[in-house]
């Protein structure tokens, strides 16, 4: 590694140089043994996101991309990146949607962060709340069943985002899921023996019943996203959701992160394995046919959609 620095006790103390120029590096892509400076890192990340969008045909001319903006780091980076990259596509507009789940002491800060970001970028912003859509805040709904927080919140948020996207005239729904999230989901679905969910790809829907979901950051690591935000002066130290310590994902995240550190490329390989399974899946074994919910008519895989099943459990 090259690097400038001062001498300290006979040891050279400095920052490694960028592998592509002589500037100080900000990050090392360990699986490639590549050091990148601020300018090259930002350019590399924007190029990789552009390639993901183009390769997977995530955006088409005339699209209205509704961005699920929680105000946290991933969705903030997603909105910033899409705002910058938008001129690459003709006649495409962005709308941000924020869902207030009603999590006391946590959501206020991220809601404020989302509003500040959309104001500064001049992006249309719609806010919906669990209270408005479902009659109660998440805190109220979870009383006595906190251990199910992420499952219940996930089901309701998915519905809320679909409603928000439809109201905003969206043709696609973009979420900030990153490489860490996606690889964790692969492992969690395997741990739960949930093969249909493992191979379910909401980005491909020939029925037209779902809004197409896109994940432009799915090959970008959490650390790269945080670095991108810091380098663009868009980093906010925000609190972590108080319900995360109930989540299985938290354990998987820690385990997978340790594994990625010891074996660089593990997360990427998990995604590649999932894609291979998707390509060779046998319909009768792992796929679920699309049906309509007996209660509300929404598309689902069983007799009832997840929302109506949840309603039954609440009496």
């Amino acid at each position, binding site marked *: *590694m090259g*690097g400038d*620095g*001062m001498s*300290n*006790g006979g*040891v*050279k*103390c*400095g*920052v*490694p140089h960028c592998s592509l120029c002589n500037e*100080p*590096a*900000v*990050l*090392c892509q360990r699986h490639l043994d590549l*050091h990148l400076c*601020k300018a090259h890192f930002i350019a590399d990340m924007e190029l990789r996101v552009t390639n993901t969008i183009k390769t997977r045909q995530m955006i088409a001319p005339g699209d209205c991309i509704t961005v699920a903006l*929680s*105000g*946290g*780091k*991933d*969705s*903030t980076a997603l909105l910033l990146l899409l705002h910058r990259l938008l001129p690459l596509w003709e006649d495409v507009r962005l709308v941000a949607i924020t869902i207030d789940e009603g999590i006391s002491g946590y959501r206020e800060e*991220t809601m404020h962060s989302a509003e500040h970001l959309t104001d500064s970028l001049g992006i249309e912003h719609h806010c919906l709340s669990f209270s408005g859509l479902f009659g109660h805040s998440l805190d109220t709904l979870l009383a006595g069943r906190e251990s199910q927080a992420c499952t219940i919140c996930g089901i309701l948020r998915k519905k809320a985002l679909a409603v928000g996207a439809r109201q905003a005239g969206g043709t696609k729904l973009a979420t*900030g899921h990153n490489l860490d999230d996606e690889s964790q989901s692969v492992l969690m679905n395997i741990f739960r023996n949930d093969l249909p969910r493992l191979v379910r790809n909401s980005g491909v829907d020939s029925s037209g019943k779902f809004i197409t979901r896109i994940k432009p950051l799915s090959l970008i*690591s*959490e*650390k790269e996203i*945080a*670095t991108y935000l*810091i*380098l663009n002066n868009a*980093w906010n*130290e*925000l*609190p*972590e*959701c108080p319900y*995360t310590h109930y989540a299985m*994902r*938290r354990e998987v*995240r820690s385990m997978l*992160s*340790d594994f*990625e*550190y010891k074996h660089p490329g593990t997360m990427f390989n998990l995604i590649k394995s999932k894609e291979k399974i998707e390509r060779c899946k046998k319909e009768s074994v792992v796929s679920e046919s699309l049906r309509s919910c007996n209660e509300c008519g929404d598309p689902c895989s069983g007799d009832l959609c997840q929302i109506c099943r949840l309603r039954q459990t609440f009496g």
Partner: protein
Amino acid sequence: MKLILSEKDVRILDHPPAPVEQILLEQGINPLEVIVSRNGKVIPEDTIIAADEEVRIIRIAHGG
């Protein structure tokens, strides 16, 4: 060497010059779960930190 993890968590170490990565591991921190900065500038994990230097460690919260 001074490690600032938060306002309430500042660690003073009697440590010879060493790579950021080694220092983090010794503190039980996975280098993939933090960003490290020195003098306000983000630095990679193989940067050598001098015995009298101060670095800030930013934890990457999940979610968002």
